[in-house]
């Protein structure tokens, strides 16, 4: 293993890592926001809308991310959607993951016991207050562990962005490997970087989980 090669390529590798984290962060945030909106729209139970959302979710969960990304980046211009590689990558990650996040939020809503909602109804709470104060907190708490899990999965999906020349980590690694014939080193460095990312995500995720489920363990702070 040639350490000098890694050192020489460090600036581009670090920049690639930065792009990866950015694409993952922005794409994930977009996916969570979009998925949440989709889950809320499902709750309206308007038949044509529900049907359309169902198709959306099934299409984006049922086809490979690589295919979706190609269609967006290479096919986009045909319908007037001209995006830079990075913009296409972020948008692609967001839309792709939103299908999964929508299902996670839907399951979260389903996890709130009907009795808690009946209790809100029985004291005369409005549907809006019931949603904001009872259903939503319960749903978000239930959804937190699968959201963290999905974010971990998504962090590794970012490698696919190299295919459309987003200058992220995989792309920089391949460049390095091609220019210096150091296939093993680059793969090894790749694994290290991703492990770092996933480990960091998991740790933050565990803290967030502990935080939102604090009420199961401790006493509340005085109001």
């Amino acid at each position, binding site marked *: 293993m040639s350490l000098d090669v890694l050192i020489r390529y460090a600036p581009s590798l670090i920049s690639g890592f930065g792009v990866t984290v950015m694409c993952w962060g922005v794409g994930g945030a977009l996916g969570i926001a979009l998925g949440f909106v989709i889950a809320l729209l499902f709750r309206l139970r308007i038949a044509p809308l529900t049907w359309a959302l169902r198709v959306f979710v099934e299409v984006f969960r049922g086809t490979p991310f690589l295919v979706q990304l190609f269609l967006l980046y290479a096919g986009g211009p045909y319908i007037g959607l001209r995006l830079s590689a990075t913009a296409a990558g972020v948008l692609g990650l967001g839309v792709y993951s939103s299908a999964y996040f929508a299902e996670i939020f839907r399951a979260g809503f389903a996890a709130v*016991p009907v*009795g*808690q909602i*009946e*209790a*809100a*109804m*029985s*004291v*005369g*709470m*409005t*549907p809006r*207050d019931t949603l904001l*104060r*009872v259903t939503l*907190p*319960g749903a978000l*708490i239930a959804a937190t562990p699968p959201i963290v899990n999905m974010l971990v999965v998504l962090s590794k999906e970012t490698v696919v962005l190299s295919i459309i020349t987003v200058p992220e980590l995989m792309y920089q690694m391949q460049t390095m490997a091609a220019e210096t014939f150091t296939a093993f080193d680059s793969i090894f460095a790749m694994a290290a970087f991703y492990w770092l990312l996933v480990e960091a995500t998991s740790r933050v995720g565990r803290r967030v989980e502990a935080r939102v489920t604090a*009420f*199961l*363990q*401790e*006493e*509340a*702070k*005085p*109001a």
Partner: protein
Amino acid sequence: MIEIRGLRKRFGAHEVLRGVDLSIAASEVVCLIGPSGSGKSTLLRCVNFLESYDAGEVRVAGQLIGYEEGPDEIRRPMAARRLRKMRREIGMVFQHFNLWPHMSALNNVAEPLRRVRGLAHAEAYERALAMLTRVGLADKAHAFPSRLSGGQQQRVAIARALAMQPNVMLFDEPTSALDPELVGEVLEVMKSLAAEGMTMLIVTHEMGFAANVAKRIAFIDEGRILDDGPPRRVLHESPEPRVRQFFQTYHDRNSF
């Protein structure tokens, strides 16, 4: 206070309530007793319209719940806003407490006061704490439901309903999910409520409580009230064979 007449309700092909008449005067405590599947919980849930009904009427404080009365005999579902307004005046306590797990005991009680009664923060918390004190849980005000025993959770749930200052309290098997040891503390709170003149309709299997606290026991089976009268008479000398048979097995089980 509660007037139920000719109440009918079906779930698919099964008619759960088959013409129920029952009236509860102000400050009266009535226990609703019957075998499982008799329709007693459904009947109770019709009173605050958590369950809709198909025919007959349920009036609370003189007002029909769930439907608007038109001049033309045809009834329409009640506007949601009006239904909410009626529900504020009807307290309900559930078998499984149904506290909101992400709120402390105090917040569970204060939440409806803030959102529904529109009380200011300080006033809501003051009243909530007073209610928790009343059910003997002032020291648990900041505990989350998961840290409370079943009996304590149910007392918080009673405080939550009571804080709204309802005209009527409905209890749906309030002690059925509790360890035998914890039943007493909940019944104590209910007993003190009854002594203060609260109008109460209680679905329960606690015959001792019914005998001592209720003014009347209504026995329901297969969607019909079979007997309705003073506890002593219904428990021991009912003219209805089905009622006698039901309580006989109960007496047998408890003679030790």
